[in-house]
Structure formats: structure tokens, C-alpha cells
């Protein structure tokens, strides 16, 4: 039991009578990456803030690194909050040494690690610039450096990819994976499923404060079966959604993702498609996380389905 790095038990948090987090539990072992998924306003950030002891849960238990949250373990955790912020008037190096010292780092250690990370993130030439002179993306990178510089054992990243360009998203993703290899336990929240899909070991999906899905990524995917197909085509594919055995279609114009009713309708679909379209490719796929998520949402709240394509 005690080798879990993160243990949340039945967390509940109300804001002004509205339940923001409803009975969320999760466990995370050393070296695992957990994706905390959910639409905006689902309760991801509230959950993270409770883990970080920024707000107190109304009920429930939290244990990090085998103990209750305390001053002692603060230095062993790296936290990237959802809303980024740095002192605008501080220079890049001053920022590193301030936050580094705050995390209990020695001066030469800050120098060594800071320089290495600045190089990695291509920020070396900005070391004596003030934060306010950096672009938004650069400031984000600097914030990320601050989060990981003190080599925390547990990283908690709230929307780490938000506001980054594809190149930097790759860099951040690589570092997340590198940290995992070093044995760091990581939770990150995102509403961008594609990024989560490629990195996480397990997933917790929440919506309206409630956990709607959780488990290892592979299990979840197999649970949702292989009745997903990806078709690359030319022509007018409007008719597909009216086919009886088709459950769901996401049509992108030249490509569509089709979810079938049951497992035995692939041949029928292919026939029907060939009759009316020119099909370039036809392949079965694993459901994407976003597909699963959308599906799961539709199941859990029938009331407001369909307002978000």
C-alpha cells in the first residue's frame, strides 16, 4: 500500500454549494504517468490544488510520497499551475535562483542544472533578459524549467502543453518521458487528448467533478472495442450516418472515423462505402481517447449532449 506515491481517497470539494469535486479517488505508483482528463471546468484544477494543499478538501484523504502533505515534502514536489506567472521584473537567471532556493537548492546546483535546462529549452541567450521581455511561449518554458529544476520525485503539471507551439510541445513531452524513465511520478491534466494518449500510462477522466472513467490506457482502449474504423475517401459521405449499423460518425471531409454497432458489420460497411464513394483506405483503429471521452460523456449526461459537436 505504502509504495503508492499518490493516494487520493474520496475527495470532495464544494464551492458555494456547488460540488466541484465529487468523490474522487486515485492511486499512482512510482514512475507512473497519469493523465487527468476532462473538459474545461470539470474539476481538474480543483483536484490538483487539493493535492498541492492549496485548497483543503471538504472531506477525503490525500497522501503524497507516503505521508500527509507537509513542509518537508514540498521540496520533493514540482508543481506547474494552470495559470502561469513569474515576476515580470526579475531576470531569467534571478528567477531561476529565487525559485531554486525556495525549493531548497544550493547555489552551484542551481547554476549547473539551470544552465543545462536553459540550453535544452533554447533559452540560453535570454539568461540576463527580464521576464517581461520574453515571449509568452518562452515564459512558459521558463516556468516549466522552474518546475523540474530541483529534480522532484513527483511532478504535477496542470495543462503543461497549453500555449506552447508544436516544437516546444515535443520538448516538454520528451522531458516528461525522460522524467518517467528517471522514476518520477507524474500527474498531468489536459483537455487535449491527443497529447495525453501518447504519454500516459493510465487515465482518469472527470466530468462535472465526478470520475467517469479510470484505469490503464490499454485496458480502457480494449474495453471500448475495435469497432472503430478510419476511412479515407473521395465523394459525398453524408449517407453514412444514416446507415442502421453505424453508431457514430465523425466526418472530416476526406477522412472519417466511424463507430459501428456490434463487431460484425465491417464487411457490410465496406460494401456500402464502395458503392457510393471512392475509398482510398479503410482501416480498423483503436478508439482515440477523445472518442472514448465523448462517448463516455454522452453516456453519463444525457441531458446536455449534442451541444458540443
Amino acid at each position, binding site marked *: 500500500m505504502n509504495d503508492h506515491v499518490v493516494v487520493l481517497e474520496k475527495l470532495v470539494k464544494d464551492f458555494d454549494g456547488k460540488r466541484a469535486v465529487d468523490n474522487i479517488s486515485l492511486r499512482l505508483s512510482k514512475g507512473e504517468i497519469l493523465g487527468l482528463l476532462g473538459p474545461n471546468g470539470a474539476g481538474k484544477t480543483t483536484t490538483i*490544488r487539493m493535492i498541492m494543499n*492549496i485548497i483543503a478538501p471538504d472531506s477525503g484523504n490525500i497522501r503524497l510520497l507516503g505521508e500527509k502533505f507537509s513542509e518537508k515534502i514540498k521540496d520533493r514536489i514540482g508543481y506547474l*499551475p494552470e*495559470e*502561469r*506567472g*513569474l515576476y515580470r*521584473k526579475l531576470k531569467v537567471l534571478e528567477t531561476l535562483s529565487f525559485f531554486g532556493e*525556495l525549493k531548497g537548492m544550493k547555489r552551484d546546483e542551481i547554476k549547473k542544472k539551470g544552465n543545462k535546462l536553459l540550453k535544452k529549452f533554447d533559452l540560453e541567450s535570454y539568461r540576463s533578459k527580464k521576464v517581461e521581455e520574453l515571449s509568452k511561449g518562452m515564459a512558459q518554458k521558463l516556468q516549466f524549467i*522552474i518546475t523540474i529544476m530541483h529534480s522532484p520525485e513527483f511532478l504535477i503539471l496542470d495543462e503543461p502543453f497549453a500555449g506552447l507551439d508544436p516544437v516546444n510541445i515535443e520538448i516538454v513531452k520528451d522531458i516528461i518521458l525522460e522524467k518517467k524513465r528517471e522514476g518520477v511520478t507524474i500527474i498531468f491534466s489536459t483537455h487535449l487528448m491527443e497529447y495525453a494518449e501518447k504519454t500516459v500510462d493510465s487515465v482518469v477522466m472527470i466530468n462535472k467533478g465526478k470520475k467517469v472513467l479510470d484505469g490503464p490506457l490499454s485496458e480502457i482502449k480494449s474495453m471500448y472495442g475495435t469497432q472503430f474504423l478510419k476511412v479515407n475517401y473521395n465523394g459525398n459521405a453524408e449517407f453514412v450516418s444514416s446507415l442502421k449499423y453505424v453508431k457514430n460518425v465523425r466526418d472530416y471531409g476526406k477522412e472519417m472515423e466511424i463507430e459501428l454497432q456490434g463487431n460484425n458489420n465491417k464487411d457490410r460497411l465496406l460494401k456500402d462505402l464502395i458503392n457510393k464513394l471512392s475509398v482510398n483506405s479503410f482501416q480498423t483503429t483503436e478508439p482515440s481517447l477523445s472518442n472514448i471521452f465523448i462517448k463516455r460523456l454522452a453516456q453519463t449526461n444525457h441531458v446536455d449532449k449534442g451541444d458540443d459537436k
Partner: protein
Amino acid sequence: MKVLTIIKKEYKQIVKKKSFIISTILSPILMAGFMFLPILLQRAGREEKTIKILDFSGFIQKQFIEESNKNKRVKEALKLNFTNIIKTDQKQNSLIKIYEKNVLNKNDSNFQLIPEYKKKILDKMIDGLILIPENVKKTRQIYFCASNISDFETNKYIISTIQKILSSNVLKEKIKDPKIVEIVEKATRDVKPSLFIVKKEGTTKSRSEIPYIMSIFMLTLLFSIIMAYGQLIMRGIIEEKNNRIAEVLISSTKTQYLFYGKILGIGLAGLTQVALWIILGGVFISRYSFKIDKSILSFFTPELIIYFVVFFILGYFMFSVLFSIVGASVNTDQEAQQYATPISFLLIIPFIIGIMITQNPNTSIVVLASFFPLFTPTLMFMRISVSIPSFFQIACSILSSLIFIMFLAWIGAKIFRTGILMYGKKPSLKEIIKWTMYR
């Protein structure tokens, strides 16, 4: 120690700013300017003034103008130019009579100038008009009408000169022997006062307005640095709130460390500035002491400087906690301003009381008010600057301030802890009070 990290950062962030260097250098220059100001004002600050005399008694104006033309001080220092109105308008004479009758009968009535004279004053053709009624010998009543009646030196000159002329006229009329007239005139000459201010450091010649001006000046300085550094804290906290740095900070260290580190760091920056001023001021005074009015120099005793530092520290801690509470409770600078105003009132009220202090620094209301913790830093300092109260009183006020500061900081840290993570809506006072209850 993480507190040290925060103290260091807050301190550096201020001291390294250009505005810190500028204000450190500029302030002593302003201060020096202030020292010379009274002298400069006296030498060059006067405009030439033309004052007309309308004399219905007929015997004063000639003597008055002669006397004034002989007097060097009138021409050079006061820059007054007296002329008479040759054609006396009898209408004004009857207006005076009506007014005097009304006053005698205790009827309310306004003093009336005939439009011609009024217009001359309003159009700045003349600066004033002295009206001498017919029966001035009996009533000894004169009238001085001007757009500015606050020029005490001019008023004093006019009054004493007319008084002299009147007296000698009356004497000459009643007493025929010029020798006796001379004796009486000699015997009734004005007393010339010289004012000396007595301090431990010595007794110095001064003018009555100097201690008043200087202590108001020192109080302004104290007030403005307490305000300036208090507001710096407030804005710093709002920045951390808005940037959400607060979350990173709190997940790295205790909120108390953050709170006290911030206040200490910025306070040290303030102290650095005060120390630099004292050094710069000391250098300046030692170099140019011969040029500075002795009565101003004698104002800056070492004791006063020490008390200035002590009360700056006390005032700073008191108000920085108040300002940090505001900073933690609001979301924008604009909202903060709304709350900062009442706080600055707490610093201004002692100013008003301060005016009472200069006249009588030991009236019971002033003594009492100077023990009210929020007023102590400014009011007690002002009392000290005018005339040093007993050491017991000073010690009591410092002690009560310290206790108050500790209490305030204890509450402040609690409000800060909750407030710094509250975004979005502005909390009500009730909620803020509730924050102090959290364990």
C-alpha cells in the same frame, strides 16, 4: 532558510530599481531645497505691492507716507509702495459711518467699498486700500481692504506705524512741552523680541515658524515613505495574485514565511533608503553648514534622527501589514485604491492633530491621541520634533505600538494565507473576518 530567500528577493527587487536610486538621490536635494526655502522666500519671494491710503481724518497719510519712504525695510524687504488718494470720495466716508453705526447697534451688515475702489483691487491695479475714518483719534479704528490679507509682515507694519503716528499726534496735541513728548515716545517704543530655542544640544536663535515648518516637513517625509513602501507591498501581493505566482510560492514554502519575508525584505529596502538619506544629509550638512540657517540646523539633532528611524520602522510595520491585507483581499490595483484611501486617512488625521501640537504639544487630547497605535508613528514623532516628551511617554508609545504590530501581523498573516489564493470575486468584510478564524 527560505525566509531569507524571500527577504533577499524582495529587497533586491526594490533596491535594484532605477526609481529607488532616483528617489534616494532626489529626496535629499529636495530636502536641501526645503532648508533654503524659507531664506529664499524671504529674499526673493516678495512682489512689489502698491497700497493706497484713503485718509478722512486728514492728518495721518502724509506722515505715514513720509515715514514709509524713509524706512529702508519697507522699500527693500517688504517691497511696499504707499501712495495716497488725493481726491477723497465722501461717499466712502458715509459708507464707513453707516457701517460703524451698525456695528455699534449690533446690526449685522457688510462693509461696503464704493465700486471704483473695489474694481481697482479686483483688477490688481492696487494691492490694498487703507481706510482711515474721520474720528480715528477717538475710535482708533482703521480698515484695511485687500485681496490678500495673509501677509502678516505687511499687516504688522501698517498697524504699528499708524499706531505710532496716532499716538504722537495725540501727545503733541495735549502736551505742549516737546521734551515730555519725547520721553513718552521713548517710553512707549515697541519691544523687540528675539526667539531662542532651548535643546539639550544647545540654545539657538530661531524664528517662531521654523520648528513648525521643519516638523511638518519631517512628518511629510515620514508619511510619504510609510505610504510608499506600504503600497509597494500591496502592489507586489496583487501582482503575485494576478500572476498566480502565489500558487508556486505556497507550494514551495509556508505562507507565513512568504508574508513575513515580504514585509521584512521591503522594510529593509526602506531602511536602506533612510540610512542613505541620513548619510547624504550628514555629508551635505557638514560641507555646507555655514550656508544653512542655524535655526534649521539646530532642528536636526541626533536624537531626532534616531526617533525618525524608530518611528519609520514602527509605522512601516503597522501600515505594511494593513496594506498587505488589502493586497491579499483584492484582485486589481483599482480595487486596492478604494481600500488604500481609508488607510491613508489614518496617516493624515495625525497631520490635522499635528497643527495643534505645534501650539501646545502637551494638551491632553494630543497626548492621548499619540498613544493610539495607528497614530503613534506620526503623532509621537511630531511631538518629539516640537518638544521632546518624557522618555516614559515615548517608551510607552513604542511598546504599545510593538504590541499592536504583533497583533496586527498575526491577523494579517491569517488573512494573507487565505486571501492570496482567492481569485475572482471581491470578498466581503464578513468573509475577511472569517479568514482570521481559520486555524
